[in-house]
């Protein structure tokens, strides 16, 4: 099939359509709305069978999604940012139900301050919920990942909900050429959902999501969920290999770009990884042996795959588009935890926080991060984490502040005397 131009949101909607979803519980939030509007239009016109219902909140949306999946239909939903956090109680809950369905999250920075543009604090807030996470870097990956996500979620060794993440604006509203698998091929790859015994029917009474008393049964179910999530690494690799043989696109758990002989690599997720890829090419042209390592699968965490991809690498520049207040970058912390104690691990991890609320990461910043990391490798010591922010930016912000202040003093005669 010839590629067509699609936004990330349209690609997500196409993923759901090709997956033959039955049920779409919805609630609008920028920058996700185009996904549910697209699906709504297809459902209304009959282009796609199924049912969509707009709930009164994301908390309810996730409850309905989990409940419908637990009744035996294929469910798709989408949200972003505040919506994901509003639903947080239910993310943990429906994962505990082992309800397999797919939730697309269109990443957007969290309030406060309230904003519309992308970073990954929203999706990372859900990292311990039991939802598996697939992170996309381009629109093609969005449609592919939705199909992969259903295979993963519904696999009998997994049975967990899966989140597919794309960045707001940078992917959600950006048109890129996308090859859509044809419906028959998608169906062959992803047959109809077989819920097994997980359903409600008069002749087969079920109690789902019942309470437990005490830590022992509680631990039992929590461990089961964790072990199922661990199973998802090999299951994912298997279905990604099958996907590649059917559709010709490599979708493994970790993308390793020009890592083979690399001295240092960038380590990051999301759409900005394509900026890193650019930077890698430029640095390579300049004779620097730099690569990019990008986990697509972040939950479960593919530690072994990452560690083996880093064999021979001397330094890793971790670029976190998120910030754990008082700690730093989540990817950095997790990578350090995954590598610590492995004799073969790179000696140096450098930590950079950038791209918060959609802030650009410029090519020069990638070059600088590479230089800092090369220097650290030479010196044998990791520098303290860095928050990407330029002097010009700071000056511009200060200028705005003083303009606003001057405005206020001019328009209110009492000026600063007003309490």
């Amino acid at each position: 099939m010839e590629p067509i131009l699609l936004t990330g949101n349209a690609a997500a909607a196409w993923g759901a359509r090709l997956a033959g979803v039955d049920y779409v519980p919805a609630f609008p939030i920028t920058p996700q709305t185009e996904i549910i509007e697209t699906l709504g239009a297809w459902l209304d016109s009959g282009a796609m069978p199924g049912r969509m219902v707009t709930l009164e909140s994301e908390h309810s949306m996730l409850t309905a999604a989990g409940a419908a999946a637990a009744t035996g239909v294929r469910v798709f939903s989408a949200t972003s940012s505040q919506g994901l956090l509003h639903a947080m109680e239910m993310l943990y809950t429906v994962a505990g139900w082992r309800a397999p369905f797919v939730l697309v999250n269109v990443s957007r920075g969290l309030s406060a301050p309230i904003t519309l543009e992308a970073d990954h604090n929203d999706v990372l807030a859900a990292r311990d919920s039991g939802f598996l996470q697939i992170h996309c870097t381009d629109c093609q990956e969005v449609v592919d990942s939705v199909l992969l996500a259903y295979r993963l979620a519904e696999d009998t060794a997994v049975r967990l909900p899966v989140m597919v993440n794309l960045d707001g604006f940078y992917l959600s509203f950006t048109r890129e050429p996308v090859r859509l698998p044809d419906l028959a091929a998608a169906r062959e790859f992803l047959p109809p959902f077989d819920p097994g015994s997980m359903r409600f029917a008069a002749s087969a009474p079920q109690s789902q999501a019942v309470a437990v008393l005490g830590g022992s049964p509680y631990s039992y179910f929590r461990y089961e969920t964790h072990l199922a999530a661990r199973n998802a690494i090999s299951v994912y690799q298997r279905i990604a290999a099958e996907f590649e043989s059917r559709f010709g696109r490599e979708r493994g758990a970790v993308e390793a770009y020009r890592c083979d002989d690399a001295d240092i690599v960038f380590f990051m997720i999301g759409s900005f990884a394509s900026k890193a890829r650019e930077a890698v090419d430029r640095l390579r042209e300049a004779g620097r042996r730099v690569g990019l390592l990008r986990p697509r699968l972040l939950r479960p965490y593919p530690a072994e795959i990452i560690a083996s991809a880093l064999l021979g690498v001397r330094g890793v520049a971790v670029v976190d588009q998120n910030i754990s207040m008082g700690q730093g970058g989540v990817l950095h912390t997790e990578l350090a935890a995954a590598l610590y104690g492995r004799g073969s691990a790179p000696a140096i991890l450098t930590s950079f926080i950038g791209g918060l609320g959609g802030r650009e990461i410029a090519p020069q910043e990638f070059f600088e991060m590479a230089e800092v990391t090369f220097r650290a490798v030479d010196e044998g010591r990791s520098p303290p984490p860095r928050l990407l922010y330029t002097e010009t930016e700071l000056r511009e912000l200060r200028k705005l502040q003083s303009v606003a202040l001057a405005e206020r003093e001019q328009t209110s005669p009492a000026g600063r005397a007003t309490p």
Partner: protein
Amino acid sequence: MSEIISRMKDLPSAHLLGAGTPMCSGCGGLEALHQIYDVLGENTVFVNAAGCMTLLSVYPFTPFRGSWLYTAMASAPAGAQGVRDALDLLIQQGRLPPEEDLQVVVLTGDGSAYGMGMSATSGAMDRGLDFIYICYDNEGYGNTGQQYSSATPHGAATATSGGTGGFPGYKKDLFSIWAAHQPSYVATVIASEPLDLAKKIAKARDMSGPRMIIALSPCPTGWDYDPRESVAIGKLAVKTGVWPLKEYENGTVTHTRIPRERPAVEEYLKTQGRFSHLFRPQRNEALLTEIQQRVDRYWAQAQ
């Protein structure tokens, strides 16, 4: 399951709900649920919110012969939406024979119904969801130790309203709030009036759309009285006019029981420890009068 219930002897004696639950003895909510379950039957899926009843199904046992799904405190009606929609889709697609269909029943306490779950309930009614909502109203957050909720009556002492005047707020009129959504049916019931209860549940069962039931649920633990008094206290709640038995249908509210000669409300109040501060160390005449007047005013307007 559509037999007519018009006399006491028509009441089902199936006792579908199993015994041995961890609920308190004398639990008025459990008594109501027993009766309701007998009328609804086992082809039901109960979608539950956090509260005392959550402990009915504790792994790996359940007193229900039918199905159960525990959700969370705020969103049981949304869980019902998901189950209902999924059942409809499965039947539509021929993946589930119609005889396998289930009545979807939300089961929550007052804390959920009057408060945290209210927007989910409102949304479910807006969408015309085909379900039954059972709120067992024990007038407080029972499971967490009976703190006051927005269903707590004026003056009641709770774990968070232990001052001299008890709870300073007023019980929210959930019946009217629900009725304002114009659902198929809204009714109040109480286990101590089993015939009235069974008639209303049977009526609800045979309708479609949102069918909303509030069961006042005397709670020995939270209201502080001897468990054996539950039925007597329930009867007094109706007789004194504190708990009007009524239903809403097609835009009209009808009282299914009009207590002609209402004993003083204090006959009801003095049966429960939560109101003892109204009588001891001395009578709180002002508060007793206010409570009586509110009940009188209700019935003056109702007739």
